[in-house]
């Protein structure tokens, strides 16, 4: 079974600071990787995803993530955060086996951006 770890539970940044949220996973096979964002009071929204190819993927709102296979990591980055990025961020993994593609989520990282 796969598992996902997000080591930063709470992050507080000032506007314009750079962001990097860590995500590590464990799984014996090939995986699909996702970052979802949950703004206060809203549902989970897909930020970006990696299935194959270029390990650096760009998502919406200036976010990007890099898949480093050797480190089992898929860290999320943004060079300059805004107050509107305040949200909870979830890393998720699903096995790339074309079956149910069950998502396993990390525990989430709450980001607060101070204006």
């Amino acid at each position, binding site marked *: 079974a796969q598992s996902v770890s997000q080591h930063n539970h709470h992050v507080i940044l000032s506007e314009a600071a750079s962001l990097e949220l860590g995500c590590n996973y464990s799984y014996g096979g090939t995986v699909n990787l996702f970052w979802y964002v949950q703004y206060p009071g809203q549902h989970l929204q897909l930020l970006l995803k990696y299935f194959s190819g270029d390990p650096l993927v760009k998502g919406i709102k200036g976010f990007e993530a890099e898949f480093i296979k050797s480190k089992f990591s898929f860290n999320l980055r943004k060079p300059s955060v805004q107050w509107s990025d305040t949200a909870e961020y979830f890393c998720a993994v699903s096995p790339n086996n074309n079956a149910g593609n069950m998502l396993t*989520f990390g525990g989430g990282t709450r980001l607060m951006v101070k204006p």
Partner: protein
Amino acid sequence: EPEVTQTPSHQVTQMGQEVILRCVPISNHLYFYWYRQILGQKVEFLVSFYNNEISEKSEIFDDQFSVERPDGSNFTLKIRSTKLEDSAMYFCASRTNGNTIYFGEGSWLTVV
């Protein structure tokens, strides 16, 4: 953009009562899911459904839970006899043959 829609958005129910949470997945999607998020905890997988049957389920999805796709558009989660610990946000999700899963806005269930 097509969306997964869920009803009700909020429900308060007494312990022991039956609850049905409803979802309308995106119309051309083939795989359907229920996840839940207890307040302050991580999002947890409950069940996946494909071709009119359960394809995977977690340990959480015990005999008190059931899913149904009664009419080709709705996808329901029934909790037969609710417990206090069933209080959570329940998310429905769906996907096509691709790997991206789209989530609904959630149904917030409070058991008192």
